[in-house]
């Protein structure tokens, strides 16, 4: 306990502050030209949110393991016999526990820095009130997600961050590619969301009455019960149903964190402003998938089968995404692929049972990846292109940016003593250990190890192409220059984090935010050996990169099988093509055929009836000849008919119906 502990109950202030920013900027932004269209309000309030967020995190550090939950009933349905005998309560609440405190720290700090950076970066754009409002709303949703005290609320904010991401990717909505990318992002993550929902249903229904008292359902399906997990991880229950539930959660996480095979949207999401990429598509929202896995593993737990699936997805993704980064020529997309790849590492760690190690990497990654993006943004801001092959020599005109990018790249590559080294190394070590207990993990460990080489190769390729060499390869580029102070300060701060964040966990107070195996990392002989191997791989990656691309060199285009592989990689393994085919061709064709059936078969039948009646009317009226003898004929025919009915048909029918 400390003086700050009572603050934990007010963690809800963080989303509230940013929501206030959303409302103010959203409604008044158009009249606040002097305040950068409300941008400064957003900066101020996100700064306040950062202060509160940091204080909350510190308070949590000072009371290790503390669970503080404040919640409000959202809706209550009374019980009925069956699954929910005591009714269903859905609540909205704010839970501060070590994990959420850590996430709060990341989100508010990066959020504030990006907001500040935006003042400079976005200065010349139109629609700034919209931008700042949406970004504020995003922070609201993201901090809400972080503080969610139950899966439903988690999902609620999860969707909201998704829609903010949708709007921000589509910020330059006049560009068809941006509009299309926004839609794609929404749709692909939606697939994951649907799986996530199914997972929620399974958990909710399965454990409705578990957990003592009136049961989990009646208590709002909360993660925590005051001071401890409500249900506790379901260790030892390895039922198929729970495995499916875990897989569904993994599906949701894969959608949000762009894991294989739902990774396609993230590179395209780079259509949004670079600031958005830094905040949403590098540091926070995409990490929410990992956070989801972590939260699930802490409060609900995964079955062993789930864990294997998670390890597999993580391992495949980190390698698979890295390969695509190797050939890409767009500075932002290279960084985007590296994000997917790094998220793969985190997923791998969570799957391997060392959740906190994954979260550790999430923490360091948020800073160095945001740094990389903001540095890239600085470059784009200066030269107006994202094509690496047009750039060159920018270290001369933009030394700070070059330095920042270098710090980010070193951290990403896992070079000692940068932040990335500690966390990534921790993952490799932990998975190595886990693989000894679970041999099936070995291939994925090897993939992760190989990725270390690829990572350092592609990120330094990007650095050499952009900053190395004498001058830009495309002479038509404008002369680059550093951005204003609002852009430089975040670069400096983030560089500081990218260098130092790795050491934080060696402080026990901070480490209490990551309570679990593997944090802080230990360094046994095996670990040191593994570190040496990975450092060696990273170093050789840098070396190869320098050989091929250093000093303004352009490597010769590959030939033969390598060229073919390059085409495959440039086409992203044809995943996008395939998904497009499913979406545009398969589903749409089915929809068109349904429409055809709708118009001509279903509705056609109805119209057939209409015709029948009007034809019938005309036909019957033809019998009204006006000639009385015909009418007499009808009478006689009717008589015959009536007699037949009474004497023969009627009795037959009546008898067949069983007498009277």
């Amino acid at each position, binding site marked *: 306990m400390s003086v700050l502990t009572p603050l934990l109950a007010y963690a809800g202030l963080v989303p509230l502050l940013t929501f206030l920013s959303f409302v103010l900027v959203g409604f008044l932004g158009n009249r606040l030209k002097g305040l950068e269209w409300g941008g400064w309000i957003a900066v101020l309030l996100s700064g306040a949110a950062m202060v509160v967020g940091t204080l909350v995190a510190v308070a949590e550090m000072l009371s290790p393991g503390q669970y503080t939950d404040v919640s409000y009933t959202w809706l209550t349905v009374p019980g009925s016999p069956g699954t929910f005998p005591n009714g269903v309560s859905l609540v909205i609440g704010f839970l501060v526990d070590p994990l959420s405190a850590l996430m709060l720290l990341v989100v508010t700090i990066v959020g504030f820095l990006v907001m500040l950076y935006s003042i400079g970066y976005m200065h010349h754009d139109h629609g700034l009130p919209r931008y700042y409002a949406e970004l504020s709303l995003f922070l609201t949703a993201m901090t809400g997600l972080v503080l969610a005290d139950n899966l439903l609320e988690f999902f609620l904010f999860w969707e909201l961050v998704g829609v903010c991401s949708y709007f921000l990717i589509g910020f330059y909505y006049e560009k068809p590619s941006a509009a299309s990318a926004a839609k794609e992002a929404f749709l692909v993550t939606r697939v994951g969301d649907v799986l996530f929902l199914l997972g929620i249903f399974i958990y909710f229904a399965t454990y409705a009455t578990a957990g003592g008292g009136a049961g989990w359902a009646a208590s709002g399906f909360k993660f925590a019960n005051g001071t401890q997990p409500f249900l506790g991880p379901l260790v030892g229950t390895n039922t198929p149903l729970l495995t499916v539930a875990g897989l569904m959660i993994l599906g949701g996480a894969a959608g949000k964190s762009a894991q294989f095979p739902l990774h396609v949207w993230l590179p395209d999401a780079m259509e949004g402003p670079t600031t958005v990429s830094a905040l949403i598509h590098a540091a926070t929202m995409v990490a929410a998938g990992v956070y989801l896995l972590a939260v699930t593993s802490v409060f609900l737990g995964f079955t062993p089968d789930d864990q294997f699936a998670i390890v597999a997805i993580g391992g495949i993704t980190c390698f698979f995404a890295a390969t695509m980064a190797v050939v890409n020529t767009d500075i932002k997309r290279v960084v985007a692929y590296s994000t997917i790849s790094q998220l793969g590492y985190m997923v791998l760690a969570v799957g391997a049972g060392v959740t906190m190690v994954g979260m550790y990497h999430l923490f360091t990654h948020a800073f160095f990846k945001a740094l990389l993006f903001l540095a890239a943004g600085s470059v784009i801001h200066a030269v107006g292109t994202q094509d690496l092959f047009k750039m060159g020599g920018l270290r001369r005109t933009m030394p700070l940016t070059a330095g920042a990018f270098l710090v980010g790249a070193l951290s990403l590559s896992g070079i000692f003593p940068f932040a990335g080294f500690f966390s990534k190394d921790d993952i490799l070590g932990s998975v190595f250990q886990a693989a000894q207990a679970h041999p099936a993990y070995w291939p994925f460990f090897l993939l992760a190890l190989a990725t270390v080489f690829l990572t350092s190769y592609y990120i330094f390729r990007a650095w050499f192409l952009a900053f190395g060499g004498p001058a830009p390869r495309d002479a038509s580029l404008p002369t680059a220059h550093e951005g204003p102070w609002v852009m430089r300060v975040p670069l400096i701060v983030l560089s500081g984090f990218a260098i130092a964040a790795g050491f934080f966990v060696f402080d026990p107070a901070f480490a209490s935010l990551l309570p679990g195996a593997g944090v802080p990392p230990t360094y046994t002989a095996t670990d040191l050996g593994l570190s040496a191997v990975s450092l060696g791989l990273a170093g050789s990656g840098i070396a190869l990169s320098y050989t091929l691309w250093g000093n303004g060199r352009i490597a010769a285009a590959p030939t033969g099988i390598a060229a073919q592989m390059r085409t495959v990689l440039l086409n992203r393994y044809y995943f996008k093509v395939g998904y497009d085919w499913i979406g545009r061709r398969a589903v749409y064709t089915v929809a068109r055929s349904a429409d055809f059936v709708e118009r001509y078969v279903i509705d056609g039948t109805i119209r057939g009836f209409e015709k029948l009646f009007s034809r019938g009317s005309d036909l019957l009226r033809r019998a009204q000849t006006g000639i009385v003898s015909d009418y007499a004929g009808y009478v006689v025919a009717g008589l015959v008919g009536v007699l037949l009915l009474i004497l023969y048909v*009627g009795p037959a029918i009546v008898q067949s119906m069983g007498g009277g």
Partner: protein
Amino acid sequence: MSLAEFLPEILLLAGALLIFLFDVLGRRRLELVGGVAALSLGGALLLVVADLGVSGLAAIRTVPAGSVDLPLAPSLYAFTSLGFVFQVTFLLAGLFVAVASLSRPSDEKGASVFFGLLLIATLGMMLVAVASDLIFLLLAIEVTSLSTYLLVAYPRRDERSLEAAMKFFIIGALSTALSFFGASLLFAAYGGTSFYALGPGVAFVGFPLLAEIGYGLLIAGLGFKVTAVPFHAWAVDVYDGAPTDVAAFLSGGSKKMGIFAFFLVFLGPILLLRSAPDALPATFGASLQLTLGILAVLTMTVGNVLALRQKEMKRMLAYSSISQAGYMLIGVAVGTYPAIAGAAFQVFAHVFMKTGAFLVVAAVAGLGVGPLIEDWKGLGAKRPALSVAFALMLLSLAGVPLTVGFVSKFVLFSAAVEAQGFYVWLAVAGLLNSALSVFYYARVLKAIFLDRPDPTSPVAGPLTGRIGLARSAVIAVAAVAIVGLGIYPGPVLSGISTAASHFVGIGA
């Protein structure tokens, strides 16, 4: 037998004789003869209402309460509450037509013939309502038939009227022959013609086949009156060709008489089946009901389908009239007292809707508007009150809520469902048909209220003709009754329901 019991009928007869006397004396002004007719109809109506036991009118009651609703003894006539209800209906139809006709030109030729025959025809119907013997019934029907043939033909210079009368007569005579032949076969089978002899609990003397054929012939013969399909074809031509006021009377009166005749003739075997299943071939009652049910469905469906694309207003109303007869036949086919009550209420309601509608058509024709539905375009703006009244009548015919037509159909179809089993399908058929009917009523409403008049149409002009006070009053009364009974049908409906329950011998 006391003559006083027949005071209403005598009043009608006396009125008719007085009118013919005036005619002989050369006093032929329409107001005079029409006034006599209206007064005798009104007086008779008052007396019959008193006979129904309506409180406050006991003093002028002519039939002793103790002789009403007695079990049918072998006699020529018997007084039943339901019969009185039908008498009220007939008299209302006659009165409406008579009063409305007062608005015709006072020097019109043949006025005394018209009003005299109107009274005689009503008299025939009144007698039908008290008949207790098949021959008495058929003769009473003949009284009405013969006078209505002549009523249709009374504008002697009109070729259309004469053609209509000719058709009416030929089919009518054919039906008469069939009815009497059927009656003779029943006579052969039962050895008598009293409904008591044909009714429940009476021994059957032999020749079951003759009885069945006899009933079959009677369906055909009486089917003519109720315009049951396929005995209906004359009706449209006759309603079309006849003077519109006469058509109003035919649809409001003579058809209803047919329904009552159906009750009298066919309820016997149907009820017999229920009380003594072995008196006739066991399946006969059911197969009779089946036949009547099929006839009902056929009638309403054909009537509606025929009306769907009809372009002339009068013919459309005539076809719709046929379909309405189909609904009423449901009551006969079901044969329970709620169904009879439903049919009787439908008959009662029909006076206001259909007779009223024909009277409006006559009024509009008097304004110089043509016979086609499209000639009515834009009338809503020119004659809003008349148009709204007409709209109410059509909506009521369609069975739209808050009109009497809705209540009557609701009760009728409820009753069919109440009988359960096979009869539920009659309700379904009836309801589907009422859905179908909405089409052509809506078409008329659209023409009147939504469309603009053609420039050549009289409606586009000043439309200065007068409708006349008497006719306006009748139309207004009918419209008010439609809404009034639609919102609060309570007393009338429960009276009819009680009467129907007595009619089948429950709680007599």
